[in-house]
């Protein structure tokens, strides 16, 4: 095992790497084209958009291949494009950094993104605004690639805001529905709260290091005053919380399910919401200089992984269960990222496998909804395994992967995190373990309510399997859900070591004691879910309950109520108050002055007629006074 303590300087881009910028430019230009061309491109817009993503994917794969062939110290490549702006001593380059970390992201984004584009061709085929949908998806791909490929924090932030915009546009895609429009606004505003953290972090970096480039910031991180290092860490964490739906900025993610399901799969599960994890791992040098900030990351992550799982147990909307699950799984990633060098590679590992199996399950949920006339209530499902075989089988692969069934992809990535958590702190380890048990419980509940049991279909619903254009992406993602873990397991630590400075350690396929414990807890969760939901029939409406745990879960842990009480109501009250103050308070005083002036002008009007002319006269008079005074001073 090689331990690289110092991070190699990125080498200049040559050959294939000079094409890196087209990964971003092609989907961005296609997005603009489709939006501007209007109805002209209705017939072929979706095909061009899909091709654009595959172009980016092809470039990403080629770059990855070149990196594989290069020696470890020359894998990170800098590809500057142009000077965005420079002011004073600060220069901001639009530059890309293709290194071991960003290339994995680029492939995930474009690969899963490409599959979701294909799937959407079928899923959105009856939507009159399909072209617009694909334009937004391409916009998202471009912004997300900019986010992960940027070589400095400010350009990262441009991508960061770009994905926020795409997310807003896609959540409120069906904006004739007031709920969708409101959900989009909510997501954007809550993300903006996180953006405050980003702005403050970047500002602090500039004040500390005079630059926002990763290389400069990393170089200076160790010699930063502890207070400022901690503050930068906390600011970045605030940003990460917004984007990655971590407590306390989690409330937007469940509402974001108002968007079309491919959007939930791509943006609100596989890619965008993991940006916070990327940010923390990318900023590892800063966090290592700030143990307090690392501790804060761990606390936020642990709370979120339990809160998300809790929400997952009580929702009846299939997408919201998956959304709760996404929160929870990102919590695991953040936890690994917060643990430090022992966890970085596992955070990214879990991020990749989660990207596959969660996209798989979201698209599977979309396929189910497609067959159920867009009904999302699992209480109206049941027995779908017989009529939707491909969907069921692919979904089952995702299910086994997320609960960590041995040798499926989640088994490797999640167990490593739980183990790292135990090594860090027993209490955190126990929390992570409990989270795994609850995950098994709610996912089993979802499987049982959707695919097993008796039919609870609403009248007029005739479930059917989805067309091939939708099932083929499902099959590919299912294969990845099964196999990605074992392929990446022995490779990813060493690959990422130069970029994230983690400490690779030996892994074996034989479970450790923590591994055995995890399996036992997961089995417990599965059995518990079967006991509750597998043996007896499911009521078609959610039974009334006084159980505070269920009530809290159904109400998404009262996140909206808390936000309303703490922020929304006071802001509204203040805004109304200011309206009143301006109109009644300040203006009343000024109007008093105006009346005084008005009195004066009445005097004027005796000499002149009309308002305007009297004021004009005032001015002429004023000018004369100036002249007179000036002449007088001159004489004196």
């Amino acid at each position, binding site marked *: 095992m090689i331990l690289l303590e110092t991070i190699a300087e990125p080498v200049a881009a040559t050959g294939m790497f000079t094409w890196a910028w087209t990964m971003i430019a092609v989907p961005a230009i296609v997005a603009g084209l489709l939006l501007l061309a209007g109805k002209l491109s209705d017939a072929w817009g979706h095909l061009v958009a899909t091709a654009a993503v595959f172009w980016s994917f092809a470039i990403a794969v080629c770059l990855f291949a070149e990196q594989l062939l290069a020696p470890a110290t020359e894998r990170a490549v800098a590809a500057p494009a142009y000077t965005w702006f420079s002011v004073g*001593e600060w220069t901001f380059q639009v530059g890309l950094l293709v290194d071991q970390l960003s290339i994995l992201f680029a492939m995930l984004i474009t690969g899963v993104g490409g599959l979701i584009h294909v799937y959407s061709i079928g899923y959105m085929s009856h939507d009159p605004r399909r072209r617009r949908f694909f334009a937004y998806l391409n916009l998202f791909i471009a912004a997300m690639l900019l986010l992960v490929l940027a070589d400095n924090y400010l350009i990262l932030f441009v991508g960061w805001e770009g994905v926020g915009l795409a997310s807003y546009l896609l959540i409120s895609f069906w904006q004739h529905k007031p709920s969708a429009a409101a959900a989009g606004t909510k997501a954007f505003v809550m993300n903006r709260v996180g953006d405050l953290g980003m702005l403050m972090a970047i500002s602090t970096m500039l004040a500390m290091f005079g630059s926002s480039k990763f290389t400069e910031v990393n170089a200076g991180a160790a010699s930063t005053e502890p207070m400022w290092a901690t503050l930068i860490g906390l600011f970045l964490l605030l940003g990460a919380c917004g984007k990655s739906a971590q407590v306390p900025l989690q409330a937007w993610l469940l509402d974001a399910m108002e968007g079309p399901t491919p959007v939930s799969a791509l943006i609100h599960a596989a890619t965008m919401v993991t940006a916070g994890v990327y940010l923390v791992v990318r900023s590892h040098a800063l966090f290592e200089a700030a143990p307090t900030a690392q501790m804060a990351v761990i606390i936020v992550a642990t709370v979120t992984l339990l809160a998300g799982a809790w929400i997952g147990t009580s929702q009846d909307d299939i997408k919201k269960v998956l959304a709760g699950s996404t929160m929870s799984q990102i919590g695991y990633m953040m936890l690994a990222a917060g643990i430090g060098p022992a966890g970085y590679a596992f955070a990214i590992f879990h991020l990749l496998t989660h990207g596959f199996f969660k996209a798989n399950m979201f698209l599977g949920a979309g396929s189910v909804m497609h067959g159920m006339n867009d009904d999302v209530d699992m209480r109206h499902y049941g027995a779908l395994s017989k009529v939707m075989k491909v969907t069921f089988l692919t979904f089952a692969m995702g299910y086994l992967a997320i609960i960590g069934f041995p040798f499926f992809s989640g088994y490797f990535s999640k167990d490593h995190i739980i183990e790292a958590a135990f090594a860090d702190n027993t209490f955190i380890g126990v929390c992570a373990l409990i989270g795994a048990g609850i995950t098994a419980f709610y996912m089993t509940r979802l499987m049982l309510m959707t695919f097993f049991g008796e039919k609870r279909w609403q009248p007029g619903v005739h479930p059917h399997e989805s067309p091939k254009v939708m099932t083929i992406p499902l099959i590919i993602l299912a294969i990845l859900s099964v196999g990605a873990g074992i392929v990446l397991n022995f490779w990813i630590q060493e690959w990422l070591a130069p970029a994230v400075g983690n400490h690779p350690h030996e892994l074996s396929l034989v479970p450790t004691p923590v591994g055995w414990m995890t399996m036992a807890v997961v089995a417990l969760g599965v059995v518990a879910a079967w006991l509750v939901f597998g043996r007896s029939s499911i009521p078609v409406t959610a039974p009334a309950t006084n159980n505070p745990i269920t009530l809290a879960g159904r109400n998404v842990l009262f996140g909206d109520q808390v936000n309303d009480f703490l922020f929304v109501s006071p802001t509204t009250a203040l805004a109304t108050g200011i309206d009143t103050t301006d109109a009644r308070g300040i203006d009343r005083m000024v109007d008093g002055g105006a009346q005084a002036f008005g009195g004066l002008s009445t005097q004027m009007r005796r000499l002149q007629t009309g308002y305007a002319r009297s004021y004009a006269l005032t001015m002429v008079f004023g000018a004369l006074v100036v002249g007179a005074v000036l002449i007088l001073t001159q004489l004196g």
Partner: protein
Amino acid sequence: MTFPWLTFLGLLPLVGGVLLFLPMGRGAARTLGLVFSGVTLAVAIAVTALHVGGADLAVQVPWIRAFGAWWALDVDGMGLAMVLMTAVLTPIVLLAEWEPPAMRWSAQAFFALVLILEGLSLFVFMANDVLLFYLFFEATLIPTYFLIVGFGGVRRSYAAVKFLLFSLAGGLIMLASVVGVYVVGAAQGVPSYLVSDLAAVRFDGDLGRWLMLGFLIAFVVKAPMVPLHTWLPDAAEHSTPGTATLLVGVLDKIGTFGMIKLCLGLFPEASLWITPFMVWFAVISIIWGALGAIGSRNLMRLVAYTSVSHFGFMVLGIYAFTTASMTGSIFYMLNHGFSTAAMFLVVGFMAKRTGSYDIAAYGGVQKVAPVLAGVLLVSGLATLSLPGLAPFVSEFMVIAGTWTRYPVVTAVSIIGVVLAAVYILRMYQRTMTGPVTDETAARFTGRDLTGIEKAVMVPIIGVLLVLGFYPQPAVQLVEPTAKATLAYVGTTDPAPVVKGAK
């Protein structure tokens, strides 16, 4: 003697405006107006090219020798940015107001007044003599007053008088300082109004502070800062979108322009003395304006309040005294002209179809008029400073620059960034999304943006995008002004804290 480019530039629209008072047909009047504003734009571009090429454009002719007043014009980066903004916005506004509201004065009068206002504003931005500046500063009130009173909404007289009273009050206070500056200068053996001459005069102690305050109060009224901002929402609400664009986009910039050119440029010591006060007042304006926008039920008022918030950022950047923050402020002055124009004009297009500026009068417009909705959204995103659009770059420079001196103040001020998302997206949500209302169906079906309306919006959004993706030339244009001002005031940027990081 070389050709007096700057005098020519300012006179062109004035001549056009005066010509438009001659009797002529409506079509001829509009064409004439557009031609004059177009030629002015061409000359402004030529002037920019000359300046960038290094030519000395200064005009300096003795005017009233008795008290050292000069017909002195010159441009630096900031002045040129303002000149260009004014020259670009004027033809756009004329095009947007091709059909002024019925039952008001004629289109010919509107075009004439706008051109006169353009000429006077150009002279304000080019004046290099304090008395000249003052005279043009006051003169802009006349066409503005008539633009509000001749073409505005129901309560236009009230709004126009309120605007005039605030401005005149500020102007009178400034007049006292204008006189005082001369007296002090003459006492020190510099009997001149030239800005360059006065820069050598020392305005020390209490007297300097009082003189500075005289200018500052007028500029604070102009670049409306809380609590002297209340005239703006009324003036915007009761004037036409084109007038509001010129009022907020161009005229209010004289406030921040004057702070840099005259307050900092003549009274460095007094300006540093007032700094703590101004910084906090800027923050109050940012938050107050944003909250006012959230509370607004009228679209024009909403846009006006967003400007109060944005002027807060500009003032904050000026009084933070760093290269980045002040360059950001000047660049913000330019960008804000375009983002505000975009908002006012789109809102105007909406009202043209419904006759109402009330947010409650709209709903579900996106479905029937997608181009209009898209343009409103892009304008809104520029207003909330989304990266990729020009205002972000300037707002970021202000925030990051101010942070190096006042992290706590900056942290409070950027709450305005969150509130910006709230006021824009809530407005968009209420007007454009949701089910199509009957009213919307009746008013907007088949009436998406027209060709002229698109021609109005394309250049504005184009500028916002170009300056968003490639701001470097504009930043380099205005940075020398900030650097020169800071050098004159005698402050230096805080160095990076961590040594050897760079």
